[in-house]
């Protein structure tokens, strides 16, 4: 399915992220746990499902990838609306703090370097985008080895703060 959406082999890039996922599915709440057969039929999926889809696709292409979580800064004016949207959904994961949100992404390993792909938005996160709306202020990699992401060293299952003084 991914190959037919993305045609990775036609442009010679070594790694082609499954950007089609963000067009194919809307981002929204879904119950957890969710079965694969339910997830692929859903109109809207949350970032956890996006991440699972992306990892499955990348792995099938032989790409070394791992799950990861980021903390992003959006501010209460935005998180209040998301909280409302997710409220009352049975089984929905609580991922929203006051300013910060918890977001599932994918780490693609290339040697000892990490690239971080956000399949919900269909874009690569930048290690330098640590200010502004949607800034990544923390990251936790579920990879079995240390990887470099910009000036940050990602260690297995440890939260790395990209901005000093952030806490949650």
């Amino acid at each position: 399915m991914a190959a037919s959406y993305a045609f990775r082999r036609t442009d010679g890039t070594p790694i082609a992220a499954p950007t089609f996922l963000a067009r194919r599915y809307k981002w929204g709440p879904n119950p957890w746990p969710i079965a694969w057969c339910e997830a692929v039929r859903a109109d809207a999926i949350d970032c956890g499902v996006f991440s699972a889809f992306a990892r499955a696709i990348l792995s099938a292409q032989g790409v070394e990838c791992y799950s990861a979580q980021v903390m992003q800064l959006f501010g209460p004016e935005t998180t209040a609306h998301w909280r409302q949207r997710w409220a009352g959904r049975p089984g929905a994961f609580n991922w929203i703090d006051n300013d910060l949100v918890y977001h599932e992404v994918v780490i693609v390993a290339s040697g000892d370097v990490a690239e971080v792909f956000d399949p919900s938005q269909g874009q690569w996160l930048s290690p330098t985008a640590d200010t502004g709306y949607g800034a990544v202020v923390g990251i936790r990699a579920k990879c079995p080895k240390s990887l470099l992401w910009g000036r940050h060293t990602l260690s297995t299952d440890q939260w790395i703060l990209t901005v000093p003084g952030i806490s949650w």
Partner: protein
Amino acid sequence: MTTVYVSGLHSGPSPSAGVGTARAIRAAYPDARIVGVDYWHGSSGLHHEVFDDLWLLPSWEYLDRHAHSKAIRARLDDGAFFISTLDLEVRWLAETLGGHERLLVPKLSSLQPTLKPAQSLTDLLPLAVPETLSLERSDAEIYEFCRRHSWRCWLKGPFHDAIFVADWRTLLAARDFLEHRWQSNNLFLQAHVRATEESVCLAAYEGEILGAIHMEKRLTTAEGKTWAGRVIALPDYLLTPIQRLVRRLGWTGGAEIELFKDCDAERWFNEWNPRFPAWIYGATLAGFNLPAQLIARAQGLPAPQCVATSDSFTRVVLEVPVRLEIGLPLPTEPDHSEVVSTSKYDAGLPELLHTIEAQPDGRQRLRAQPPTPFDADTRADLSAVDFAAIKTPARVFLPGVADALFGKFTHRIVKYAGGRAAPTGAYSIKTAPYPEYIALARRHGLLAECISQAEVETALQGGFLPEEIVLNGPGKWWPRTRTPAKGLYALFCDSVEELTAVARSPGLARVVGARLKLPSIPSRFGIPVDEPDTFDALVQAVRGLAVDVVFGIHFHLASSAIGITRWWDAFEAVLAWGRAIECASKRRVTMLDLGGGWHPEDFAALDLGAALRAAEEALPSLGRVLFEPGKALTQPTMLLTTRILEVRRAKGSIQDAIVDTCIAELPLANFFPHPIWLRGLDGEWHGLGRGHQQLYGRICMEDDRIASNLALPETLAPGDILLIGDAGGYNRSMAYEFGRGGQEDVAGLARAACIAAH
């Protein structure tokens, strides 16, 4: 301290008005606290220094609208003002918070009459109104509208977007695009007005106009957005009726009335936007600060002074630093399947429209608008066909319909005879070079119009005499294996070279003439009369014609492609050029040949008498006018019958169906709308109306789509029989053999005789 919330901060090539509105307020109130409101991280106006604070919200798709309205109300109750410059947000605010004294947008009752196309407003305004048509009407009506307006029409979205449509295929694509983008069928067509653009902008409070200006656009972007303009106070002849209208609407807030000024200086209404325009700060530079007047009036204060620095403004492109607390959106990964673009619609505005219009899942239901039932002639013809046993696909000839059509044409020709220029009818062999039509043409006394020696041969075999044949086209001597026929009725040359050669060959035809290529209407055919050297050569060639040869001119532009009004414009131009050729060559234009390309309805409505009178008036020696209706005589005389091969469903609903015909048998399927009827169990024919399903053909070509936007009944099943109208004319003569596996032409669909309802 006054606090004003201003929404709509996108500041790209098609900007919202938030930045301009805020700058105008800042100019009058340097100490005001101005808060920018937007729903998209990428709106560049977020970074403008005019804003003291920002209220950046998630896109409308993820916004909790109830919570948002509560948050706005809390701010209003706290003494702040709110000015929206987003059309859809204005409407949403009017619905949810309308009437709050510090919400400076119109009430819902004020807005309703201004919703596009807002034609009821124009009863109160001294403005002409371009004709509009809802796209909920039938495809036949839509097609007629576009022809009538010479395929110069705009397809407009419910709140935003306008796409120029110049042919049926573009219209289908634009309709699909806008319906998909806005998830709405609330689209309409508007006739184009050849004009420059102007705007009226006003600020009003509870029906009282506070200020109004007139802006003449001087420079526009490729999207038609204002780039530079000149601003003056609104003249009284516009101000007085607009004051009356604003009072009647009880309007509060900004408004922009978009106008056209045509070549005769008449002004036309385009649309009413329920907010300040993006160039509003340009008006402030010209001494008219309407947003500040609105804020002042809402506070019961006198209007602030505003000093003009120029009566005109222009935009410049500036770079500004990005606010650290906002940052920039990350780039989207480029993809093969679509070109990534960003616009203010990225803020989820279609989602908001979807909510406002309260549509249930998916699009609204369309009104069916099925094609009209069969007339008596058609029913009589169809009664002779055994549809239960018919082998499909098959073309069904309607002899009664065809005979009536040819008869009406000759009746009209006879009706207008008696003047100096005698009208004569001609049948275009190329539209349907088949015995049944040639026999009809002969029986009704028409001439045969041919474009090749092969067609001449067909006409002769069909019983026409050489002196009943008109020869046209760029390849009229093909194939050269034959000795060209001589003694024809008329011969019209496509080039000066051909005319010169024909002049040296006496006896080819009694009438020899030239096909004219007009300036401003693109065509590969005819002699370009606006080229001085070519015109001189044409005149020399005409002078070289033998004295016993009658000279004529030929004009052939498909009215179905260029539209009715442009056809008449072109016709008048041909007469003027004919007169010019007469004057220069000293040879009289004695015959005029008016070529085909007529839609059947348009030809039926063509005022032959008016054409004859105009031609007689322009060309004093004109003795004959040939009318050649082209496809108008043949297109409606055949139907294509086809069976459903497969019905495809998704999520329990019918999506589309495959039929056993294809575009090889209906090559113009997507060039104009074709009415379609479904045969019921009772043998009755039921017209299929507008909907969201497609009919696809049987062959392996991506564009093998037989019909689009149909309402297929859920009961549709393989084997069901459909009849497709307007399958004669070029739909038959241009049919091709692709996809038949090299077998004999199935049911005579392509070139051989078809199944006839004899």
